[in-house]
């Protein structure tokens, strides 16, 4: 791969951006990045590192590694501001802890309705409240600027959907997709779009003979897990925050449109109009998958509470599934044994 996107150093990129614009940290797929973009702020999704030294003093051992990782990042390398979403209770409380322990100029938490579809009115008002809060920091955000920003995000997401189409045909590895997704969650959208266009033109087709897998979970913080999975199986679709959950477009170019977009994001943190089990079964059929891998973080309440029901639905329908639980520290060999055994099982 010659494309600039595949060799981009994101830390270096952020270092350059820090000198010229305000950067806000965020942690959730339900963050209205479009509003921040319209305010001239760069929204960056934080993943942190697995070395946890400072964060443990603030969090209990039953908190998920994602919470620990991002807090460590905030305590070590604070940005100009942060935006939390009450996606799960851990993130809600983390927001409080963050508020008094991380030094920054801006801190805000958005509260989502329990059922997104039933709370569009409320969510639109909540987004408006957020917009006003940001305006105090950045100056006025006009409707036109907001529309422009939403369009820029839509354009990028259309290209990401193309990337997913390519992967469906087995032409792009999940490790590469992960890299592209992390880049879009870090970069200024229009700059990522330019690189992504070039990338899509240059991407080389690959051939696979492995079992086809669908990956379910939240965030893939370290790509090592994907690398191991792809030694034995081909990931043809994912249902991840660092993946397909990011793809839906905003139809109506307004705050209401942003709120409505959240209805089509399948996240166990929120009730959506259709249960996730049937949604995943549809995806298995669409992507002709042989099996499903649940990639979950230890102590992640929303995903783990849901896991048993998802696994039962899959088993009742004859689809094998493997649950991998990730912790703070990588444990590649244990993951390798489980993944290799699962793929041996799928191959019969």
């Amino acid at each position, binding site marked *: 791969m010659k494309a600039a996107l595949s060799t981009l150093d994101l830390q270096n990129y952020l270092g350059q951006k820090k000198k010229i614009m305000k950067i806000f940290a965020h942690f959730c797929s339900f963050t209205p990045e479009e509003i921040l973009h319209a305010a001239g702020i760069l929204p960056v999704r934080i993943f942190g590192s697995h070395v946890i030294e400072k964060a443990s003093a603030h969090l209990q051992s039953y908190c998920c590694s994602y919470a620990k990782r991002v807090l460590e990042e905030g305590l070590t390398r604070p940005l100009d501001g942060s935006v939390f979403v009450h996606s799960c209770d851990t993130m809600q409380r983390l927001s409080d802890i963050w508020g008094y322990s991380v030094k920054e100029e801006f801190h805000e938490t958005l509260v989502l309705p329990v059922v997104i579809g039933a709370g569009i009115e409320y969510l639109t008002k909540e987004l408006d409240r957020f917009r006003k809060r940001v305006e105090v920091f950045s100056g006025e955000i006009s409707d036109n600027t907001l529309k422009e920003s939403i369009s820029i995000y839509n354009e990028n997401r259309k290209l990401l959907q193309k990337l997913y189409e390519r992967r469906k045909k087995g032409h792009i590895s999940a490790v590469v997709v992960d890299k592209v997704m992390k880049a879009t969650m870090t970069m200024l959208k229009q700059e990522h779009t330019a690189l992504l266009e070039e990338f899509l033109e240059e991407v080389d087709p690959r051939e696979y003979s492995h079992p086809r897998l669908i990956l379910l979970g939240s965030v893939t913080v370290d790509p090592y897990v994907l690398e191991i999975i792809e030694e034995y199986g081909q990931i043809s679709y994912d249902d991840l925050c660092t993946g397909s959950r990011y793809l839906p477009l905003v139809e109506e170019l307004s705050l209401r449109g942003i709120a409505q977009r959240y209805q089509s994001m399948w996240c166990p943190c929120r009730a959506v109009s259709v249960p996730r089990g049937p949604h995943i079964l549809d995806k298995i059929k669409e992507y002709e998958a042989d099996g499903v891998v649940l990639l979950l973080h230890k102590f992640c309440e929303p995903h783990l509470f849901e896991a048993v029901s998802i696994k039962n639905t899959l088993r009742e329908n004859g689809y094998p599934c493997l649950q991998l639980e990730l912790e703070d520290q990588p444990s590649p060999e244990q993951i390798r044994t*489980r993944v290799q*055994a699962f793929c041996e*099982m799928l191959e019969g």
Partner: protein
Amino acid sequence: MWCGIDIGAATAKLVLFENMVVSSTVIPSGFDTVKTAEELMERGVEKAGIHRRDIRGIVATGYGRNMVPMADRTVTEITCHARGAHYLDSQVRTIIDIGGQDSKAISLDASGKVKDFVMNDRCAAGTGRFLEVMARALEVELDELGDLSLRCRENVTISSTCTVFAESEVISYKNQGKKKEDIIAGVHEAIASRVLAMVHQIPIKEKIMVTGGVALNAGMIHALERKVEKEVEIPEDPQVVGALGAALLAKES
């Protein structure tokens, strides 16, 4: 002649197969896996009275499978245990394997194929290592644990699921003057609970076979049977079922 090599966390196993098991060899896993594999091969060949060139295929399995230089291919211990257990008894539908560093439960179909499996987490509770730590704390040999625990008169509960904390519980009991055999029975109960919690994630169907080095411990099997409320089958040589499966897979490929 076909060969299966299973490099586990505690022991390394080798099985030579030609229509039946010709020989099986078990040695401790050394730090240097390549050396361990070489030594294992030398001993196995000698025991069987054959030449190395008589071996037509080698499959490696276990945690050290990727470090076995003479292997033609690697297969995970899950698939190998299933293959080995099905060969020993085609009626087996559930395997409980308790090894040195991990434990696993495997569900099989009638043809011996893996239907589902589950492995323990990184914690050592519920594995052979747990027994090793307890044996040391109680100053008994590992292979004495089974018989001693069968002489238990009073139930002692080890509540903790963590090996390190369980060891402190054992030390507390020791200092309360509890009998060794009662404490050991409590340790076996604790492992059985831990293993059962895992096994319940897959359907438990009979026959149930227990494999791995821990199956050599009669007290452990007794505790496990009481928890499952079903009879379990122990093969003649439970430690080498994975290596046997590997040898069979070498023959099939």
